[in-house]
């Protein structure tokens, strides 16, 4: 291996070292964290971070190290995938620690939830669940430094205060730096969490300010960022895998002769798959191991493989859609029921019915899945981009039949995740191949074709809605049937019904004051791997419901914004359980009720800021949608322009968001900006289809995502100010769901054309621009 730059080698060496070894080079000596919460005991119910595997840890000995020169190292235990968590959480620690941010560096934790608490970087949870523990962590370290300074001077600890990286003795104005105190402080007892003096929000130095820049920015723009695909080790080998094209299929026979003749190919080996439900285990197939990635790819092309497809060969998206539609037109499992919907429907002055279709999508993070594994002396070391470091460690250890403590998972930067990298099948592949090569480091790279064709796809759904309106156009009955294969199908026998967590994503918890309301979930069978995709089931549920509300408004001849607010009714705090939602994003129903007042406020804010009702040129329109997800309230107004040829542009999107207090407002803004573009991608272009069990798309040429010309020309994010005593909401995902329905509502306003099927693609081509009857 020929390295262009010595620092390449150094980076690898750092990550090669055991974590404690790396940290013990600095002053505040760390021991293994010991304040792990026992999350196993059953009562009382646990919520939030307490409810997650391994809960949370707020022990500064696990998260903070201070070197003799005063350099503070803060450990980030959550994965960085563009949301800025390696900046935001260490910034919280630094603030309570009274550290000077310029003297703080961030170190990424390996997968070890016993030491660091839960590391599953998903569900828009990182800041929401770890803001409080990280504050305590910083405050405890600050207290230890203050106590060490007081002891050093022989004064009461009440007379000393930590200020900007040093401790000051008020009466004498003596000062001593953190670096000088670190060793003494490290010998003190960690103060109990309930004795800590936390800052008042007015004392925050960084929290809530949005002035701290991304810690990884300078490295990334200079090509120094380390992603999972970047690992380079001495004598490493490079692999790609030919996987069964049909989920549950396997290798019948294969001929590797031609592949082995490709220069650079070292070995061809079969990986046994796991029959469905295959959870996070590899699909199996034939791996080509080579001296570089290109040779591996060429070798794979030369393989001759006969596949045994198995039962999912029947999967055909066209036929499956018809199956879903049939199910959606037939009564199914009742998941919420109030009043008497059939009777109210029968009495209604008008009945409106609509059906929406939202296809499979693939996360396609710009960095495809990739992992490197090495096994030496019974120890397996992994370098990978993963959203789930502990799950990765567990799966690798299980598959290699190796104790978990013998597996180290080093977490790199993620070149995007969006849920794909919560499933470590690609990492297990690397571990198996390294074992096959007697422990030599092997990097498995997924090509884009692999990523598009062998993913864990966003579900596909038909959403069937019916409403009965009274003479004034107000709904007196609401029926929603949602039919979609469930993510649970990858974990066990296919339940054929949406899980509580999927139903809780905007299906049952509709906040409308309609006396007769019924939600049903007819059965749907999974034929591929279904997985989390940013915002998950909120995407179809919000698309259908927020489109349907606008359709009802149009039928009633009403302004869609006013109609939506009327449906929501007066501000009230609703217990989610009364809406059939027992999940509530794992948060306490008391601390996190569904607050319709906050939903109203984001709608009112975004309407005002977007100039709702303003006069637009012909062919342009505004659309509105609002959705509550990840315990955050979001409303969006999208402005579209549709040309006579049906070409769509998006001059502007306004989004109002209430996620409670914003710990890092700049990152909140960027997440919402990104959510707008992803929402536009979902709406305009992205679709995965199956034929004969095989994905029909292969790369970015036929799996489309929004490019710069399709992106909104302007995005305005309006953050609702909030006190820090309000519980935090999620940020990464809640921006996405309202975008597609607001966009389609805008298209209706601009053209009178109602879109009920995503992606929009060329549905406007035949239409062109006509003045809308309404809106």
């Amino acid at each position, binding site marked *: *291996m020929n390295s262009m730059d010595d620092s390449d080698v150094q980076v690898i060496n750092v990550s090669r070292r055991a974590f404690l070894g790396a940290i013990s080079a600095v002053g505040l000596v760390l021991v293994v964290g010991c304040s792990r919460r026992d999350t196993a005991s059953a009562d009382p119910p646990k919520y939030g971070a307490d409810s997650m595997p391994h809960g949370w840890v707020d022990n500064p000995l696990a998260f903070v190290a201070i070197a003799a020169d005063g350099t503070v190292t803060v450990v980030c235990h959550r994965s960085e995938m563009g949301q800025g968590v390696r900046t935001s959480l260490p910034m919280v620690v630094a603030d309570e620690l009274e550290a000077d941010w310029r003297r703080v560096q961030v170190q990424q934790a390996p997968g070890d939830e016993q030491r660091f608490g839960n590391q599953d970087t998903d569900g828009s949870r990182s800041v929401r669940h770890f803001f409080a523990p990280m504050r305590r962590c910083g405050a405890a370290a600050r207290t230890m430094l203050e106590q060490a300074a007081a002891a050093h001077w022989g004064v009461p600890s009440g007379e000393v205060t930590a200020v900007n990286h040093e401790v000051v003795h008020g009466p004498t104005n003596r000062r001593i730096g953190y670096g000088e105190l670190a060793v003494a402080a490290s010998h003190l007892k960690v103060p109990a969490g309930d004795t800590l003096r936390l800052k008042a929000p007015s004392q925050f130095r960084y929290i809530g300010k949005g002035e701290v820049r991304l810690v990884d920015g300078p490295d990334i723009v200079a*090509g120094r960022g380390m992603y999972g695909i970047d690992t380079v080790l001495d004598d490493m080998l490079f692999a790609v895998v030919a996987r069964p094209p049909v989920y549950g299929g396997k290798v019948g026979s294969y001929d590797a002769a031609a592949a082995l003749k490709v220069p650079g190919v070292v070995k061809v080996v079969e990986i046994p798959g796991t029959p469905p439900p295959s959870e996070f285990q590899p699909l199996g197939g034939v791996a080509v191991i080579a001296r570089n990635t290109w040779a591996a790819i060429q070798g794979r092309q030369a393989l001759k493989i006969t596949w045994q497809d198995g039962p999912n060969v029947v999967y055909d998206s066209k036929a499956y859609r018809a199956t879903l539609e049939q199910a959606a037109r037939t009564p199914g499992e009742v998941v919420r029921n109030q009043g008497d919907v059939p009777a109210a429907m029968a009495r209604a002055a008008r009945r409106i019915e609509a059906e929406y279709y939202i296809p499979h999508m693939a996360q396609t993070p710009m960095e495809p899945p990739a992992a490197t594994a090495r096994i030496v002396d019974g120890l397996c070391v992994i370098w990978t981009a993963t959203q789930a470091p502990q799950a990765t460690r567990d799966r690798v250890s299980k598959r290699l039949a190796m104790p978990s403590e013998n597996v180290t998972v080093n977490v790199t930067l993620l070149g995007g995740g969006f849920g794909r990298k919560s499933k470590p099948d690609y990492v297990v592949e690397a571990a198996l191949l390294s074992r096959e090569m007697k422990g030599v480091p092997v990097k498995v790279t997924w090509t884009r074709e692999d990523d598009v064709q062998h993913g864990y796809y966003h579900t596909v759904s038909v959403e069937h809605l019916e409403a009965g309106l009274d003479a004034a156009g107000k709904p007196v009955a609401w029926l929603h049937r949602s039919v979609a294969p469930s993510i649970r199908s990858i974990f066990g026998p296919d339940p054929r019904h949406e899980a509580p967590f999927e139903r809780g994503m905007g299906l049952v918890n509709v906040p409308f004051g309609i006396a007769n309301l019924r939600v049903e979930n007819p059965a749907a069978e999974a034929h591929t791997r279904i997985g989390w995709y940013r915002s998950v089931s909120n995407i179809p549920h919000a698309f259908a419901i927020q489109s349907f509300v606008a359709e009802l408004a149009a039928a009633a001849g009403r302004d869609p914004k006013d109609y939506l607010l009327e449906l929501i009714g007066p501000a009230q705090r609703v217990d989610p359980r009364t809406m059939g939602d027992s999940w509530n994003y794992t948060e306490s129903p008391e601390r996190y009720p569904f607050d319709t007042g906050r939903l109203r406020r984001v709608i009112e804010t975004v309407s005002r800021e977007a100039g709702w009702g303003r006069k637009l040129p012909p062919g342009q329109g505004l659309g509105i949608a609002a959705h509550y997800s990840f315990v955050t309230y979001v409303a969006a107004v999208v402005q579209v322009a549709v040309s006579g040829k049906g070409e769509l542009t998006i001059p502007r999107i306004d989004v109002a968001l209430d996620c409670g207090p914003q710990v890092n407002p700049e990152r909140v803004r960027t997440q919402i900006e990104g959510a707008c573009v992803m929402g536009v991608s979902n709406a305009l272009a992205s679709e995965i289809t199956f034929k004969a069990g095989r994905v029909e798309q292969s790369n970015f040429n036929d799996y489309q995502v929004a490019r*710069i010309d399709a992106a909104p020309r302007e995005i305005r994010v309006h953050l609702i100010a909030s006190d820090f005593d309000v519980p935090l909401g999620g940020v990464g995902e809640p921006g996405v769901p309202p975008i597609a329905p607001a966009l389609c509502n805008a298209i209706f306003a601009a053209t009178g054309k109602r879109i009920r099927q995503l992606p929009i693609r060329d549905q406007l081509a035949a239409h062109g621009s006509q003045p809308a009857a309404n809106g």
Partner: protein
Amino acid sequence: MKVTLTVNGRAADLDVDDPDMPLLYALRDGLALRGPRFGCGLAQCGACTVHVDGKAVRSCVYPLRSVGKGKVTTLEGLGTSAHPHPLQQAFIDEQAVQCGYCINGMIMQAKALLDSTPHPTEGEIKDALARNLCRCGTHLRIVRAVKRAARVA
């Protein structure tokens, strides 16, 4: 076979099995560079963009044999984390990075634009970047960063 590449002003010798191997694999697997990134392998996303004799090319489909004596410049050749090129600095100043994986392509493509058109319009910037994908959706900040770089240049 032995191939000598000139990358960022330095000569590097490589053992190559296949002269048709695209440049990207030589830069990444052979020279352990990580500015140029694998995104699609099909010239669809732009993450792999490098310059050959000042021209932006998609290194994932650019055969090694076509490089010849051409001078290859990668993101690493522009500036460093400590001393970024003004275009790199503009991306920092606009906080245009989310996951950062597309940023190599955005900067290298924008660099080629600014080299030929020092003061582009917004339309020209978008046209130049139209074939570069970003999945995080930081497009508007990327455009702002290029505009800023053009302003300070």
